[in-house]
């Protein structure tokens, strides 16, 4: 049973996320077509396809390096606001850390809390604005709660994935800030946010990969 991951595992985990995001392209496209401009799926796919292409050959010193490289690839390949935002998710929690060589639940909670703060500063969005923040903030809180309660890595990410999923559901209940709701008025209600959905897929994938790795480790 793994309670921390090293740089090789981190690479594998990210590549697993990449597969899941790429698979979800049509789903994300559909969601963004309903309330946005329909390009979120192709943007995420472009970003994580670049990750799949470039990350395998990358030689990280530590798992933090893997996250940073992932963010950089997203930043460079996705474009748009979401390129920066998803890049931020992976990069901004890393920049001021000194690595221990592995990441445990507490490390992940710290990293994602820092990047969440950064994301909110950059994008100026808070919970309730119908953005990825609605999924990301609850996921981070779930990680922190699991740390406090002394839970395992597996448990922590499973809770975070659930919290992100609830966050996606929550985006259905709110109108968008920044005027997006204007076109949709009441119709925005019932529609979920594309960026939040991607965050959920990311956390769900991390949770899946960790529990799979756990099983394998337990063999």
């Amino acid at each position, binding site marked *: 049973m793994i309670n921390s991951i090293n740089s090789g595992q981190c690479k594998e985990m990210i590549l697993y996320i990449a597969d899941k995001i790429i698979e979800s392209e049509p789903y994300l496209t559909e969601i963004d077509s309903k309330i946005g*401009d329909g*390009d979120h799926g*192709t*943007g995420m796919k472009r970003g994580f396809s670049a990750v799949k292409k470039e990350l395998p050959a990358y030689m990280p010193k530590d798992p933090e390096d893997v996250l940073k490289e992932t963010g950089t690839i997203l*930043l460079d390949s996705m*474009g748009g606001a979401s390129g*920066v935002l998803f890049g931020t998710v992976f990069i901004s929690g890393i920049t001021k850390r000194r690595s221990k060589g592995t990441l445990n639940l507490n490390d992940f909670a710290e990293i994602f809390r820092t990047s969440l703060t950064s994301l909110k500063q950059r994008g100026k969005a808070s919970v309730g604005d119908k953005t990825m923040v609605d999924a990301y903030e609850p996921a981070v809180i779930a990680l922190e709660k699991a740390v406090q309660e002394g839970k395992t890595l597996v448990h922590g990410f499973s809770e975070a994935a659930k919290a992100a999923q609830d966050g996606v559901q929550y985006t259905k209940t709110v109108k968008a800030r*920044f*005027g997006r709701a204007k076109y949709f008025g009441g119709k925005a209600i019932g529609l979920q946010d594309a960026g939040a959905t991607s965050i959920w897929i990311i956390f769900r994938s991390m949770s899946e990969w960790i529990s799979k790795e756990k099983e394998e480790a337990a063999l």
Partner: protein
Amino acid sequence: MKKIINKPENIVMEMCNGMAMAYPELEFIQKYKIIKKKEINRNKVSLISGGGSGHEPAHAGFVGKGMLDAAVCGDIFASPSQIQIYQAIRETAGDKGTLLIIKNYSGDMMNFKNAAHLAEEDGIQVDYIKVADDIAVQDSLYTVGRRGVAGTVLVHKIAGAAAEQGKSLQEVKAAAEKAARNVRSIGFALSSCTVPAKGTPTFEICEDEMEYGVGIHGEPGRKREKVITADELAQRMVTSLLEDLQMKQSPEEIALLINGFGGTPLQELYLLNNAVTRELFQRSISINRIFVGNYMTSIDMQGASVSIMKLDEQLKELLSFESDAPAFKADK
């Protein structure tokens, strides 16, 4: 969706290539979707703009003598990535530094600023200015603060002239900022654009309605309302613009830009110009220069925007400087 295309995902690449084919003085760097002057003058401040595609001729059409040195092309309605912009900065860097002209959209602001930091780490002197000329809304779908729209083209012109005159980065930036500070725009849509990736219109609009204050990505404006006549539109737009510029019956001179959104023919733009200039004359405002055409489009949206820039002597001089970009040719 009916368009002259092959596959939606290849539009930007094929379009940029088609532009470079048409204008031998331009070079298209495919890898980073940069359109730049073939020959960079290293003895002047380099100017770079860009943003999402779908606003053609913006910005690649404004690359040329007296305007930009490079335009960085994002996907349709999505900012280019920081690495694209960083590469553009590197490709065009001269001895006098580089100024980035950014339309105020979250994605553009973040990516351009990041790129500037990356380039600074390489020792290139980079600064930027933000254009936020759209008076329609304050915060919007993709922005904090006002959106940057067609007025940006006039900022390119002013900055381009200042750079061509050999001014320093600080001076070029000051001129561009003055231009940005003195320009205001407002637009309206009669139809929605259709983003190729989505394939259906961004918004629904009835046969007798318009979106007043629309953004250049089909973002909502101030109000969905009944279509009004060209004269009424002109009256309203001119009034709001002058109010926001705090110009009332003043003897000041202005530049005027009547900008089509892509699906509206020149015929209607000229007609709108007729209505707008009449409104301005009635207020004793003298017009130094008028530009009518498709400058900052929203793919195939029907509609137009009006931009007014208040001019002082310096802006007047810079505005009348020669420029030779494919989509902006002006004689002395």
